[in-house]
């Protein structure tokens, strides 16, 4: 049986006395788009920090492509492409220099990285910005460059933490469409953290996270039922998204 792109079982995390996540379990199937919906402070970024090993996972298990993050961190991290909520590229360097740097952090030499960089920049429609400094990019271009960075080592799973935050409506739609295109064409899987309902399609797998707990998981259509997703979310959490 093929392992899921991401399998999280009974993960809890606290910061001192503050419980950030409680017994979280979720699965991202291979080649699927899974939305992680929650208001600010729901625990989405904490969960992402555990999956990317920025935080120490002390309870439960996290498996990326079947590799236990605690036992085989290198193999698990090699399969992840991450788009962080805030900018993670070096603003003083060009897009190409950033991508070469990121490729090297995955052991990809320049000789192999260069054609791959052209390919991913083409995918995200940034081929003409390859030699522009990151600081000169617009918000939307910057997010697309971050996605290119996350794709450079051909990951199996993309983690996107509020990837559209701070973008205008058009740029938001472009970034979302790009991610869906990558899933359909290249077969990567994606965990898309968001607090914006419009970004979730009825066929998407959806996990609702609130105050560190998974309240509901299933397809968006099944969770929304006849009342619509916004009302369903309100009923579950008592909070408007």
């Amino acid at each position, binding site marked *: 049986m093929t392992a899921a792109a991401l399998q999280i079982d009974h993960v809890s995390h606290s910061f001192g006395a503050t419980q950030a996540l409680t017994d979280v379990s979720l699965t991202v199937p291979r080649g699927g788009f899974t939305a992680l919906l929650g208001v600010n402070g729901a625990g989405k970024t904490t969960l992402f920090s555990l999956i990317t090993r*920025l*935080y120490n996972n002390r309870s439960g298990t996290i498996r990326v492509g079947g590799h236990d993050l605690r036992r085989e961190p*290198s193999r698990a*991290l090699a399969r992840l492409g991450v788009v962080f909520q805030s900018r993670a590229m070096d603003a003083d360097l060009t897009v190409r220099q950033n991508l070469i740097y990121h490729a*090297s*952090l995955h052991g990809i030499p320049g000789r192999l990285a260069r054609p791959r960089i052209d390919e991913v920049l083409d995918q995200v429609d940034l081929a003409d910005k390859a030699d522009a400094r990151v600081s000169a990019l617009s918000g939307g271009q910057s997010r697309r460059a971050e996605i290119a960075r996350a794709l450079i080592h051909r990951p199996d799973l993309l983690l996107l933490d509020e990837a559209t935050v701070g973008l205008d409506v058009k740029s938001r739609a472009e970034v979302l469409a790009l991610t869906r295109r990558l899933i359909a064409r290249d077969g990567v899987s994606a965990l898309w953290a968001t607090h914006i309902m419009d970004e979730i399609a009825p066929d998407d797998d959806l996990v609702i996270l609130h105050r560190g707990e998974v309240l509901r998981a299933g397809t968006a259509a099944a969770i929304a039922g006849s009342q619509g997703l916004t009302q369903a979310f309100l009923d579950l959490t008592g909070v408007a998204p």
Partner: protein
Amino acid sequence: MTHPTGSARGWLTAFMGISRRETLRFINQRGRFLAALVRPLVWLFIFAAGFRAVLGLSITPPYQTYVLYEVYVTPGLVAMIQLFNGMQSSLSMVYDRETGAMRTLLVSPFPRWFLLGSKLIAGVIVSIIQVFTFLAIAWFWGIRPPVWGYVAVIPALIVSGLMLGAMGLFLSSAIRQLENFAGVMNFVIFPMFFASSALYPLWRMRESSPLLHDICAFNPFTHAVELIRFALYLQVNWTSLAVVMGCLAGFFGAAAFMYDPQKGLWARRKGGPA
């Protein structure tokens, strides 16, 4: 998919990539290079010239004759370049953490100790370029150690640069915000520099205060200075070498511990390394 950490080539690629980024950042920040040079040159041209008349130096190893104060102070200024470079690296780590660039490094599949070690070595390479530029200018000022001293000092510069860089790395793990870095200047750099043998020999310090002498003798920066001083004159100060190596292991071990999410302290704090 080939696993990146499964071959020596992958590790070398990662190291080269980190070094290249540090070099690019250094090239992009020309002011940093200028500041790193101007600081010791001001000390050499103005401070040392002024103190030459005030401070008498007896014959003390590794010197075999009386030397001018400028000659005495040069190894201390070389170590000062490395001290500031180490702190600059530390500052850049804190900056990377604040801007988010650090996360790109930390989510790499290579182990943290390797990523931090690569960053450390890259910083030392930059500091050695700065040191040799300074020594070249000092040569025209009449500071002329034996020619082979310029070769012999390289290993000493590597070890002392690694030690001071590792100290900066450790400090960067403890500093949470860029604003807190001013405290490092006041509580680490200045005390380390002034309570050392960089500017005056320890026997002179003992004459004025035995306690201060003991503090200076305990200061790892003193041993970095002496290691460089002896190497420039084709000798090895074994005690200093041992202290510097020991401190290097200690600081790097502590930094690797602090940056490791499985063991480190800061992953338990809200906010974490990202």
